[in-house]
């Protein structure tokens, strides 16, 4: 014990007289470990605390405070009481002692055992004895932190202080300049405002002392270690200013004043603060400022130069209107909402009658902003505005005026939709329904395209107003849409019409089932009477266009299951009549029919009903038709069914694969079972129109009978897109048949599809020995076939190999490396070299039909990066070792790979590849040039230093390419040159004259697209280094 007390004395001595700051830490540790108590410390400090030297006293208090900062948790209530009394007393001492005293008090405010009343007495002495703003930064922060601590724990006591507390705080923060302390001070002010402290008569003072910082203009110094942002300060201050309606009378004039400012950011801040403020206010807070606020808001929207300010102004108007809408009306009080809206209408409404002048849009936007605030507001505004808009529409003759008016009307409809989310009240537009419908329908019958487009989107928004349109209106609308689908030749209009039909059909399916679908069906099957030359080419052309629009309209309206039930049979009928030749459909039309089915499969809701429709009706039907066509293909030479065409089959594949991947997994499994047994065993029992011969062997067909063998692509569509949970039946047998077919069948579509199908199945097969041995045997087979002498056999084997390689690459299968090595060795091959180089594109890019995520394939993330990092060295080595005539293959392979990498990876990998890529730019192959340019282009946009070093080589190669015979190469190289102008100025300036001279030539290029790129690039290079330029 004695030893401890001498230790303590020596610590105190060394800290106070020896000025060794580290001893405070040791003392604190001693107190924490229980070697000595705070009481003993005070006793030991006795002499220093009573010294006549103020600096010694300050040192003594500092030691005590620092110890307290560490150990405030272990103090007892009496100790705290004594310490507080001591510290409060010391506040009256010499000013050098104040900082450590504040620190000590700060530590004590964190105590949980603060005796009652001490918080109040502490603050009283603080406010009385200390002038906060003459303290240093850290001490001011200490005072703010004390307040924050006490407000967190002793709220009731502080509120007992009444307005004195607010006054004390106002005095303490008055004049604060440091942003770090301001954040603390705003925090306190926010607590005062939001937690209901009594502001007494000091509301204005508190507002003044905080609002003097509004609007905040602060840009942190570069490398600011404190990380305070302007946004943080703005948000904190906004919370204070908007926290209470008591500030309304001060804040609103301030906002009106600041909106007059020229500084954009302060306008924006003012508008956002206004929006935040009025959400707390009541109408009486606003009443006297409404006119001023409206004048400012109107000016901001009418004359704005920036969209941000415009939208902030509109948001403020909406907030203001909804605040007024919340007011409860008394019988004797004024209705502020209608007074205010009268003001808005008075200033805006007349602009709506001048649809060719500039202010029509700002006025409309203001009215719509007010309109969207509340139901009552939307009633008042639409009642005032709609009749005149409708009148004008009827009286104006010019299409552009009418279109503007229609667009304005549409925006009103949309703004009302926003204001009524849940309630089931009747639509605001009910009163205008007849005239609105009349207006829309008359616009739909106009010949002006843009008017029709606008009208169809107005129709869509009207239909989305719940309970507005009557059934008769919908029927009329469907009639109009049907008419337009059948007659309108303008592509944009018919697109808009089809879209509108789709939106309406989702809401009102019945009218479409009874009217549109039968009509379209009739129109599609009404064959032109004779095929003779009487019909001109253009007539036939327009006939084709009608069918095309009918098919896309059928697809668009089919989102509800009930519509799908009706529309898909029509499309299937198109296919079967095309097959039978009873109605002449061209191949293009049949392909479009398949696309429509695909679109329906993509957009329809996944229900049992639609699943059955696709799996039990559509897919068997498609397979049956394709099979009939294939069998017929060999027999009769007369009529050849369009369904044996490659284009048609390829369009059928996505119908099957979309339905198998997204609709009803159990049913998809059943479809897979049927398809496999059809292809493996010739089981045709599930196909409709069953009149097939008994011995069908679709996978055994070779060579000449390609019409049957190519059907394997339909099998692919089915089995490769199943969810992974669905098992593929007879998979071993299937795989070996597919392998055989892809190696032995010489028809391109057949062997490619077989290879893809094989790959799709391998990709999803579970890991294990059976998979490994399957792959190994296939690889062996491929190698054997590749050694063959026949070029076609080798091409087939290569196709098979590249697809299998892709399947394995995507799932990170270890056996992939054998295939990579083989692939690299083929780059040196005389015949297959270019094909192998192109093969890398296939490996690295997503394929549309199989092996992608929507087919539930096993695709690991970042497989491209992984492939690149594992193989780029091999490629570079191969390039260096290759004979001159084989080098282009390597360059092509490289640019194909780099092209698909994400940009971040490209930038990091570029340094080691740059010389190779520049080499590739001078390679004569245009494909290589183009793909290299397109992979350099993003890198040039954000050039790494290594590229800047190679500038000479880069610029001269790019300039050489601007006279390439291929237009795309010229365009891309000009884009790259354009991008080079953004390099650091001192680097590119030396090239300016040369580039300008070289770019004079492409200005006179024979292709306009090239010229326009040259104009852009040359204009930019002219600005370089010129006054007023960059």
């Amino acid at each position, binding site marked *: 014990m004695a030893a401890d007390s001498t230790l303590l004395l020596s610590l105190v001595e060394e800290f106070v007289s020896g000025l060794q700051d580290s001893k405070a830490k040791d003392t604190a540790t001693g107190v924490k470990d229980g070697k000595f108590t705070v009481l003993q410390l005070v006793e030991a400090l006795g002499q220093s605390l009573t010294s006549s030297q103020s600096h010694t006293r300050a040192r003594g208090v500092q030691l005590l405070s620092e110890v307290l900062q560490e150990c405030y948790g272990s103090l007892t209530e009496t100790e705290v009481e004594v310490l507080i009394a001591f510290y409060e007393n010391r506040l009256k001492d010499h000013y050098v002692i104040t900082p450590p005293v504040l620190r000590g008090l700060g530590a004590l405010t964190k105590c949980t055992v603060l005796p009652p009343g001490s918080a109040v007495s502490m603050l009283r002495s603080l406010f009385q004895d200390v002038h906060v703003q003459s303290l240093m930064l850290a001490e001011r922060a200490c005072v703010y932190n004390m307040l924050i601590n006490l407000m967190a724990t002793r709220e009731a006591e502080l509120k007992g202080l009444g307005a004195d507390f607010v006054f004390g705080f106002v005095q303490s923060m008055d004049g604060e300049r440091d942003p770090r302390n301001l954040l603390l001070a705003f925090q306190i002010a926010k607590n005062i405002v939001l937690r209901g402290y009594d502001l007494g008569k000091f509301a204005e003072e508190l507002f003044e002392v905080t609002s003097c910082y509004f609007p905040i203009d602060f840009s942190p110094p570069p490398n600011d270690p404190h990380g305070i942002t302007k946004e943080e300060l703005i948000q904190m201050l906004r919370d204070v200013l908007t926290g209470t309606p008591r500030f309304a009378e001060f804040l609103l004039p301030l906002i009106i004043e600041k909106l007059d400012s*020229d500084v954009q950011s302060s306008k924006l801040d003012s508008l956002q603060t206004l929006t935040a403020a009025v959400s707390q206010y009541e109408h009486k807070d606003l009443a006297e400022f409404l006119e001023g606020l409206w004048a400012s808001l109107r000016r901001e929207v009418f004359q704005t130069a920036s969209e941000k300010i415009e939208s902030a102004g509109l948001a403020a108007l909406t907030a203001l209107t909804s605040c007024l809408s919340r007011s409860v009306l008394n019988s004797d009080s004024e209705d502020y909402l209608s007074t205010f809206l009268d003001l808005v209408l008075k200033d805006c409404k007349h602009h709506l009658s001048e649809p060719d002048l500039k202010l029509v849009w700002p006025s409309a936007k203001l009215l719509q902003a007010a309109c969207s605030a509340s139901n009552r507001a939307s009633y008042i505004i639409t009642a005032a505005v709609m009749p005149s808009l409708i009148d004008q529409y009827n009286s104006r003759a010019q299409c552009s005026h009418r279109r503007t008016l229609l667009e304005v009307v549409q925006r009103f409809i949309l703004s009302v939709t926003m204001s009524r989310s849940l309630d089931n009240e009747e639509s605001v537009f009910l009163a205008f329904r007849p005239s609105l419908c009349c207006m829309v329908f008359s616009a739909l019958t106009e010949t002006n395209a843009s008017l029709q487009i606008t009208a169809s989107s107005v129709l869509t928004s009207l239909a989305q107003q719940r309970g507005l349109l009557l059934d008769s209106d919908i029927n009329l609308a469907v009639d109009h849409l049907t008419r337009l689908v059948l007659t309108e030749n303008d592509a944009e209009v018919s697109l808009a019409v089809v879209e509108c039909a789709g939106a309406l059909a989702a809401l009102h399916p019945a009218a479409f089932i009874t009217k549109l679908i039968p009509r379209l069906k009739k129109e599609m099957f009404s064959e032109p009477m004779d095929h003779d030359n009487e019909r001109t080419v253009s007539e036939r052309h327009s006939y084709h266009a009608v069918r095309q629009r009918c098919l896309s309209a059928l697809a668009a309206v089919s989102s509800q299951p009930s519509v799908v039930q009706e529309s898909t049979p029509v499309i299937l009928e198109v296919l079967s009549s095309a097959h039978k030749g009873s109605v002449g459909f061209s191949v293009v039309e049949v392909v479009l029919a398949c696309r429509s089915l695909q679109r329906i499969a993509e957009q329809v809701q996944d229900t049992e009903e639609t699943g059955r429709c696709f799996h039990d009706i559509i897919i068997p039907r498609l397979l049956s038709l394709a099979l009939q066509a294939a069998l017929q293909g060999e027999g009769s030479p007369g009529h050849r069914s369009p369904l044996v065409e490659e284009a048609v089959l390829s369009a059928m594949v996505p119908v099957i694969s979309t339905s198998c991947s997204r609709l009803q997994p159990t049913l998809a499994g059943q479809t897979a079972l049927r398809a496999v047994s059809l292809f493996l065993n010739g089981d045709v029992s599930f196909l409709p129109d069953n009149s097939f011969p008994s011995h069908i062997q679709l996978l055994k067909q070779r060579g000449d009978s390609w019409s049957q063998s190519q059907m394997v692509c339909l099998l692919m569509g089915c089995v490769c897109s199943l969810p992974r949970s669905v098992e593929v039946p007879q998979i071993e047998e299937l795989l070996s048949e597919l392998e055989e077919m892809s190696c032995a069948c010489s028809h391109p579509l057949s062997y490619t599809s077989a290879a893809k199908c094989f790959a799709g199945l391998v990709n999803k097969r579970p890991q294990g020995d059976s998979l490994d041995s399957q792959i190994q045997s296939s690889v062996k087979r491929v190698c054997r076939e590749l050694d063959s002498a026949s070029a076609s056999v080798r091409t087939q084997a290569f196709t098979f190999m590249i697809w299998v390689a892709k399947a394995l690459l995507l799932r990170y299968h270890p056996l992939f490396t054998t295939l990579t090595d083989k692939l690299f060795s083929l780059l040196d091959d005389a015949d297959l070299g270019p094909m192998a180089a192109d093969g890398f594109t296939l490996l690295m890019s997503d394929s549309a039909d199989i092996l992608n995520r929507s087919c539930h394939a096993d695709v690991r993330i970042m497989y491209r990066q992984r492939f690149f990092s594992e193989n780029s060295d091999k490629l570079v080595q191969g390039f260096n070792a290759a004979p001159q005539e084989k080098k282009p293959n390597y360059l092509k392979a490289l640019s194909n790979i780099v092209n698909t990498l994400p940009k971040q990876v490209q930038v990091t990998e570029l340094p080691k590849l740059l010389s190779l890529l520049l080499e590739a730019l001078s390679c004569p192959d245009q494909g290589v040039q183009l793909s290299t340019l397109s992979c350099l282009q993003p890198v040039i946009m954000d050039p790494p230093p290594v590229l800047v070093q190679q500038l000479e080589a880069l610029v001269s190669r790019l300039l050489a390419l601007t006279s390439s015979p291929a*237009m795309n190469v010229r365009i891309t190289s000009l884009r790259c040159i354009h991008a080079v102008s953004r390099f650091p100025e001192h680097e590119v300036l030396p090239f300016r004259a040369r580039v300008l001279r070289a770019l004079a030539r492409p*200005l006179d290029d024979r*292709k*306009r697209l090239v010229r326009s790129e040259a104009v852009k690039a040359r*204009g930019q290079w002219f600005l370089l280094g010129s006054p007023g330029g960059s």
Partner: protein
Amino acid sequence: MSGGTSLENANPVIFERSGERLLTATDENEDVHDPIDDREIFDILFLHLIRSINDPEHPLSLEELNVVEQVRVKVNDAESTVGIEFTPTIPHCSMATLIGLSIKVKLLRSLPDRFKIDVHITPGSHASEEAVNKQLADKERVAAALENSSLLEVVNQCLTPRDI
């Protein structure tokens, strides 16, 4: 000057913006020669100049105020001539010379050397029409103007594309 004051003509007539030139199949056909036409010149001015010059009076672009219209652009590719008329917003527009000079410079930079470029004010649309036309037609005065670095700076600012 401040946002509080109102513009002289706060509600001018605005004209519809023309859409982008549609890409046709022949544009992409390597074998077809596309001659330089009116629309192309208009687009050069429209994309690089008209959109970026702001009339100080109005926060609208010159396009919306119809300063340059496609019908007032005349090109003859075979004879290598370009003629352009522009219409200042008001008869006393102080920017007329600058707008004319910017148009001229832009075309000098964007067209092959073989073209003779003629820029003038739409007849009857400006108070000092003749004087401005004379200045713009005088090769030496144009060259001298571009030697003046502060003038060049203003022209270049007009020609700097804005990031939208």
